[in-house]
């Protein structure tokens, strides 16, 4: 977020200007979330994440991929993945409440799969184009890498039921540290993107 505003001149005339704004909101929500947990408002915390933070994250990131090429095909992907995500969110809240399913975060898993699909689609395009040679200055490369590493890398951890976490406490503790490291990696990659982005 800080890097985004420091290098504001590079992004102010591009769709990337919304990215530091998005990161600022994430920062606000995360801080609020910590405060809510500290003051034991767990219900509000859960509600905020389930209905505001996580859906906002997915929709924003889907839109970010669409803004890269703004063509009809990308638009279809955006509409399709957003619809599937919202449908899965409704399904989860109506039918899966309290159920001990394999993925206790059904909509989150669907959202992550959507993101991974978009990231793979982006990388596939990149490796088959001349832009591959200039990947370092391509902001989307760093963002997509961050997304792929964090969301895909942490999927098994966030998807696993709490009961299973109790069965493998040592492994899960290590994995928890790994998720924090992946989270940091994602933000470092975003920062690199802002630093190395080439001004058009």
């Amino acid at each position: 977020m800080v890097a985004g505003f420091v290098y504001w001149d590079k992004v102010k005339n591009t769709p990337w200007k919304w990215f530091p704004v998005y990161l600022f909101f994430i920062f606000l929500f995360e801080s609020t979330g910590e405060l809510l947990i500290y003051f034991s408002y767990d219900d509000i915390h859960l509600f905020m994440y389930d209905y505001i933070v996580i859906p906002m994250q997915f929709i924003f990131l889907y839109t970010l991929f669409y803004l890269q090429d703004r063509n009809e095909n990308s638009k279809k992907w955006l509409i399709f993945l957003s619809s599937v995500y919202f449908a899965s969110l409704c399904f989860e809240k109506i039918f899966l409440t309290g159920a001990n399913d394999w993925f206790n975060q059904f909509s989150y898993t669907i959202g992550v799969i959507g993101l991974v699909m978009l990231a793979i689609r982006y990388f596939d395009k990149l490796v088959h184009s001349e832009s591959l040679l200039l990947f370092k200055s391509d902001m989307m490369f760093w963002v997509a890498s961050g997304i792929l590493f964090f969301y895909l890398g942490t999927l098994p951890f966030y998807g696993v039921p709490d009961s299973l976490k109790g069965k493998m406490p040592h492994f899960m503790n290590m994995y928890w540290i790994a998720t924090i490291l992946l989270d940091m990696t994602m933000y470092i990659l975003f920062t690199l993107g802002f630093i190395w982005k080439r001004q058009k």
Partner: protein
Amino acid sequence: MEKTEIILFILLFNLILIFLIGSVIYFVYQYRKRKIIYDNEKVETSKKHKLELLKAQVDGQEQTMQFIAREIHDNVTQKLTLASLYSQMMDADERLHAFKENIQPISHILESSLVELRSLSKALIDNSLQQKTIGELILEETRIVNSTGMTYVSAHIEDHANLSVEMKSNLFRVVQEFIQNSLKHAQAKKIEINLTRKNHQLCLSLRDDGKGFDMNTSMEKGMGLNNMKRRIESLNGSFELISKKDEGTTMIILLSNPT
């Protein structure tokens, strides 16, 4: 149930790990592959560029020399010839008998200057280009190439009209460039050259059985081809190039009312 869940979890974890590592390896591999291609193309372009620069320099020099030679022949020599005639007339004039001793050396100097200028003018223009017809030049080139044994060039010359030096020079350079490309890039085994004339139109067709090229790729269009095109356009001629991968290359040049 719990055992299945643990197995599923470990399976998913491993699959994701393998996928991420595989993606990184694949990306690095693709990047290196493209980088090597890019570097090779850069070296190739730079080589072509240098070659073209050299050619342009040689062309420029050739044109300048031809211009100077023409000017010497058409302008300076004519004036000196006139001056020489006047001096000879003065030498023969009885009224100027008293000055005969002075006039004769002038006449000799003028004569020797004329001889020197004519030989300089000839030396500046490639003699063979001036004296031989385009057909003869092509046949001579054919003999030289065939003697190397690298390829077989057959030439069918119907037209033996003498063209201007500029036209002969440009057409001949195009033929040389085509043969050079056929040998160097297309590895042709056979080259056919036809020079015909129909209804005041001179047609030069060049064909090889080499590996051809994809006409849509910018790299292979190259500067050599652009150079040939430029030469033909400078003669107000038309230029058609047909090439397909593994099907050889054909070039047809049409010149209307060439002189």
